[in-house]
């Protein structure tokens, strides 16, 4: 009887894993079929105003990259503070706050940025979108930097100090270098996550039908446009939304897999 229960249990567990995998497969296959079907070269050559996705893809990447340019250094330096300099309660407090912020609702961050960078400014603008994305990125980078630095053995730091190096040199020349790969993975994973976000952009930088690098106005976004297109009644809009979804997912998964690839040997 016990053995029977055990067998049922094992079967259920394997079944759950299959369900999980099943959903993944279902979603990816759906994307593939729908997306691949609507995919053609003109999507990459035309902007949304002409039925293409070029401006959206470029726009999304620009938003993500600039958000990264802000969020990554800020997050890393903050992470360094928490792990290397912080003593006692304040550093632990910031670490906890950062962890909580990591799970904060993205729409609320969008609302915040709307209130401080859109409403007073007079309208949607790319800067606001970038700020929103970087706010989301910072806690993730802090968390990953902190974790990776904690894995560096303390003897390495001591060896640097013992040679007469000052603390910041030890951190920059030795500790960061030693944690380099893990930090890179963390950055790539965070970047992949930010690149796929919609809610923070919805009413900050919104989107645009035209090709633009002008951050002072509403800025083209692949994710926001998918949302808009999916809400339009025309079949052509829907097809475009699928093609865009496919491209977005491919982009995000490639960055994600790249991040995991570089740490593949380190586990």
């Amino acid at each position, binding site marked *: 009887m016990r053995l029977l229960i055990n067998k049922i249990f094992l079967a259920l567990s394997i079944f*759950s894993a299959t369900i999980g995998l099943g959903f993944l497969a279902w979603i990816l296959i759906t994307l593939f079929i729908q997306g691949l079907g609507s995919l053609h070269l003109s999507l990459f050559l035309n902007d949304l105003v002409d039925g293409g996705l070029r401006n959206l893809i470029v726009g999304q990447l620009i938003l993500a990259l600039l958000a990264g340019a802000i969020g990554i250094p800020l997050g890393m330096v903050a992470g360094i503070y*928490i792990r*290397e300099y912080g003593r006692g309660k304040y550093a632990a407090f910031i670490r906890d706050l950062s962890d909580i912020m990591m799970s904060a*609702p993205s729409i609320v961050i969008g609302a915040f940025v709307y209130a401080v960078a859109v409403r007073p400014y007079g309208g949607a603008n790319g800067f606001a979108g970038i700020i929103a994305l970087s706010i989301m990125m910072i806690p993730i980078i802090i968390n990953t930097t902190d*974790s990776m630095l904690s894995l560096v053995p303390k003897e390495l730091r001591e060896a640097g100090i013992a040679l007469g190096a000052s603390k910041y040199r030890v951190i920059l020349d030795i500790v960061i270098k030693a944690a380099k790969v893990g930090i890179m993975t963390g950055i790539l994973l965070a970047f992949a996550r930010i690149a796929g976000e919609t809610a923070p952009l919805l009413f900050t930088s919104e989107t645009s039908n035209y090709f633009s690098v002008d951050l002072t106005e509403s800025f083209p976004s692949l994710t926001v446009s998918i949302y808009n297109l*999916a809400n339009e009644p025309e079949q052509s809009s829907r097809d475009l939304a699928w093609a865009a979804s496919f491209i977005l997912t491919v982009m995000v998964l490639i960055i994600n897999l790249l991040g995991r690839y570089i740490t593949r040997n380190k586990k």
Partner: protein
Amino acid sequence: MEKLFQKVSFTSASLVLALLLGIFTTLFVAAKPAIDEFGLKFIIDKRWNQEVALPSDILNAETTPTITDEAAVDEDEIIDEDDEMILDEDEDDGTLTKTVYGGLVPIVGTLLSTIIALAFALPIAMGIAVFLAEIATKNISKFVGMAIELLAAIPSIIFGMWGLYYFAPIIAEAFGGYQVSLLTAGLVLGVMILPFMAAVTRDSMNTTPDVLKESAYALGATKFEVVKDIIFPYSKVGIIGSIILALGRALGETMAVAFLIGAVYSMPDKITDPTISIPVAMAVNFGEASGLGESALFYLGLVLFVLSFAIISLAKFYFLKKAK
């Protein structure tokens, strides 16, 4: 140079605190007009953007629960938006009305969809965690673990698309009712929090010391018994923490739910009815809202922020005490 670096890094770290305070303050200030206007009753008021007739004699009273102090009203005057209250002259009978906002429907929608998500995801996530931690061989565990993590990496808007066109019809077939509904949104939300719950649960389970497990096996226990009697009790706290943390995250999910819940400001009679959640309410209305309506949205955002913060903090401090 060393001092400079210390100062810069300290400032960056403090940025987190500044952001948190900034977000809370900004939300509060932006929500204040709605808070002043509706008070805490907002949370239990079902009406959203509804015109409510005002009996004309109220306009002459000094204070009423529904009129702000600043609006000293002259019977003949129609106050414009800047004074936080919209009085409209009803064309038919000339009664004055004002617009009322209440957050009950989105709040309930948020909570219910999250509960459905948890109920759906919990058993599956536990099963996956057990599979990864105890059943699968090293290679299979790596592969399946990776696949589950990929599921987590898929952007939420994709879940919305897939959910709307592929999953929703099936749910409607199986359960009747609308395709875009509380149920559909809840289930897809469940699929979205599945990887996270599985991962944290698996990590919790892996903290069980091998010697403990081995002692049980050495007594002849089956895998099921070891999981049930040794591993789960040992990692119970971490598992509960993961559930609460997943709850906190699910509360704030916007895009997938926006596609699937229906965005209708009405209390669902059945689980297969459409309704709305806080993030969806914000996502859908922010573009057009202004004045009191916009303030009401910020009020909703504030409620969500505080709620998420509280739940995530609970998970973190009470249950998930990770030693770093």
